């Protein structure tokens, strides 16, 4: 339990760093660290396949995509960066207070788990369920792939044109 809470707090700190980092590269690194901690949490909860996906795709591939995108964007000037840094902190000044209030509320008003979790009975492993059972989801993934490819082409072509 202590380890879980520690992981959760670490992930929260990494998320805050991702959002508040002064540079985009810092944000991309923060995202990578967040995904890595989430991977560890998934391993702790006995979901190795999900953890592997999280590590390879979110930590690995997404970080590469982010850094490539950052490489294609125009950097801010020094003045713009200083102004942006000050504004960003001002925006989040109430965040610790809001989080504390939410924590106090949920400590005093715990969600009663007044139900019996259903037992999922399945003779199939994850790959069988993914490839042989949930075919409509695969159709959805194909749609997502096409949309992603077209989106990248549309936005990167516009970037090249500019």
């Amino acid at each position, binding site marked *: 339990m202590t380890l879980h809470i520690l992981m959760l707090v670490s992930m929260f700190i990494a998320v805050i760093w991702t959002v508040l980092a002064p540079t985009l590269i810092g944000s991309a690194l923060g995202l990578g660290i967040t995904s890595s901690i989430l991977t560890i949490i998934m391993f702790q909860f006995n979901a190795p396949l999900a953890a592997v996906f999280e590590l390879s795709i979110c930590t690995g591939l997404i970080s590469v995509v982010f850094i490539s995108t950052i490489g294609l964007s125009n950097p801010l000037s020094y003045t713009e960066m200083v102004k942006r840094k000050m504004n960003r902190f001002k925006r989040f000044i109430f965040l610790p207070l809001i989080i504390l209030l939410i924590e106090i509320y949920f400590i005093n008003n715990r969600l009663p788990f*007044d139900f019996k979790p*259903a037992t999922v009975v399945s003779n199939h492993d994850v790959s069988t369920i993914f490839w042989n059972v*949930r075919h*409509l989801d695969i159709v*959805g993934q194909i749609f997502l792939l096409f949309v992603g490819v077209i989106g990248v082409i*549309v936005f990167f072509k516009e970037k090249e044109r500019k």
Partner: protein
Amino acid sequence: MATLLFIIPILIILFLNSPFPGLSLRGKAYPITTTFALIQVVVILLAGTNRFNSLDSFFQQHLHLSFQVDNLSLFIMLTAGIITASAALTGENTISDKEQYKFYFHNLLLLNIGSLNALACTTDIFSMYIFIEVTALICFILIALKFDVLAYEGAFKYIMITSVATLFMLTAIALAMMIAGGTGFSQIKTAIESGSGTSTVMKTAIAIFLIGTFIKAGVVPFHAWVPDAYSSAPTAVSILLAGIASKAMGMYTLMRFLKSVFGFNPQIGSILLAVGMLTVIVGALGALPQKDLKRLLAYSSISQNGYILLGLGAGTQLGFAGAVFHFFNHAIFKSSLFANTAALEQRLGTLDIDKINGRGSKMTFTAATSVIASLSAAGIPPLAGFWSKLIILIALWQSGNYFLTFLAATAGILTLAYLLSFQRRVFFASGDDNQDQNVTEADNVLLYSPLLFCSLTILIGVLIPYFLGSIILPVDKIL
């Protein structure tokens, strides 16, 4: 047959983008998209649910695709077909001067209609979530297709706010799966009916899911993204967003869940009625001071979504049928109004109502169709919009919500006020005669959609006794 309606768009995309010159249909994206959408409309009008389900049993058996077509699905697919055809027609003249962007626009339209068809037919909450996300991603790209600062801002706001909705929906799915042991509609429904429905966790899941659908639909108080997204997107994309995309992701999802999953109960009804009434009034008040035509129509869309929620909140079969009917009517008259803005933008170069100042008076066809669509939106008989609002008001009255019935009827006056105001200032104000001389009617291709929609509005309104008994009321019981 429903399978074909979401598999064929993928096949068309492959042929459109084929690297082999002999197989490529690159130059034909526009006619193919429009034709496919119109064929979908014809197929749905001619086939009934029985024919759909019997032809699909082959695909279900061999491809293990879990879906079911009912009257509600057919309604959504019909609306998707009509609106996609209109967006394709309008987009050809308004998206961009560059052929490649028009090409990608039509690709995205095909993916969108395929995704909406799958969304309308699925019987699994997780598959539904996937297709909602596909549609949201497509809308994000389409909103940004103008490539200016406002478009990027609108797209960014849209994806940020709807990502919060995604978070809520996924959380609700996880909680529901914990209780039901699966993600199928029937599994969750069984779990609710067996007693888990009264558990705090299930109630939390339902509440969280409702918030997610409200954000996706853009109802008050989650409507912040709607005016920016609708106004900064190209007009053809505004037609798609207002006509089907945002409503399918939000309102249809809510309708499906009321019908097939958690059913109707008084608590959910109260929430829907409260949010619906707030949305009607805030949307109408928000539209009144608008100077930008598309922002005015965006706020109008928000307000009309409130009427749909009121129909659902009444908790009766009549209310549900009224909500679905108003969903369809809103798609028709709002898309017609957005198509009119495309015509105005083409000829006048601006959508600022103060700058237009009556210069639209020379565009007689656009003016006429705009007036018909506005009157339908305001609920003036005998147009279709009047009947859907009347059905909702009757359903509210019959369910004992007398005060809300009075409020909803009064809010119709606000709708009339802002729509008539926009008509007067755009088409009937006495502007500068020197400026008016060069204004002519828009290109024919921008007039087809308003012509079709206004014809439908009048036809449905006049022939309402036939449509009410044979199409609208049998949309299905929710209790």
